[in-house]
């Protein structure tokens, strides 16, 4: 139920911000269409904790700044490798990184974080391992060090 309410609020906010018209008829349309979409999502079974992870909001506020910092650092690293004149300083590797998350949502967040940081791309999630393409040895070792994995597991919270 909490997810459905959150979905309704997000949809209504999107509608109101994008329309710019606030007459009574338009507001009626807004509420009507948002309710319709919420009912459809509930019937499809996507308005659940996985689709609207509101319970993560607080811990995500702690994770996002670290992720953004990580993205900026790895962007600069890859940019340096691209701009280096002469032979490219890359040695691509395929690695299997273990995951310690207990839910699919946690693994999706981890795989997406890997892809968001340039230098590493998640190719495949299989069981509790993610196949990753890394641009260089140092980048691969950084990921295998497991700090991102630990932080995503902390973001995910205790198993229920």
């Amino acid at each position, binding site marked *: 139920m909490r997810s459905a309410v959150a979905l309704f609020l997000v949809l209504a906010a999107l509608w109101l911000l994008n329309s710019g018209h606030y007459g009574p008829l338009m507001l009626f349309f807004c509420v009507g269409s948002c309710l319709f979409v919420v009912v459809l999502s509930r019937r499809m079974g996507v308005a659940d904790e996985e689709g609207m992870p509101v319970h993560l909001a607080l811990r995500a506020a702690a994770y996002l700044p670290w992720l953004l910092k990580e993205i900026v650092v790895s962007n600069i690293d890859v940019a340096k490798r*691209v701009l280096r004149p002469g032979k490219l300083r890359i040695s691509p590797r395929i690695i299997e990184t273990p995951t310690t998350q207990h839910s699919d949502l946690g693994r999706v967040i981890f795989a*997406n974080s890997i892809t968001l940081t340039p230098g590493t791309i998640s190719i495949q999630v299989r069981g509790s391992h993610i196949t990753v393409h890394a641009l260089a*040895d140092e980048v691969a070792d950084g990921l295998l060090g497991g700090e991102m994995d630990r932080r995503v597991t902390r973001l995910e919270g205790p198993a229920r």
Partner: protein
Amino acid sequence: MAPQLAVILLWAFLVAGSIFLLIGGIGLLRMPDFYSRIHPAGITDTLGAWLVLIGLMFASASWLVTVKLVMLLIFLFITSPLSSHALAKAAYLRGLRPMLGHQLEREAADD
């Protein structure tokens, strides 16, 4: 915010964003194989696009425009890793094998 400061920030963010966009473009041309080309494309999608969009926020006249820029930002944040991953996985399952480090060294030795 003082107007001069907004203009300075606008210039700074737009120029920095443009530089990262260009680096992404150069990388897309320079990298040796498909998988290594996804990384510079990621630079364009993340830092390049974000810096340009944040820069535009300093020039927006009304808060509705700012909100739309934030929406674009969030949308790019969510979709760019998804499409990169879809591409990589499709290529991997189709049997396209990445060029690995030792192959690159062998090629360099052949030259």
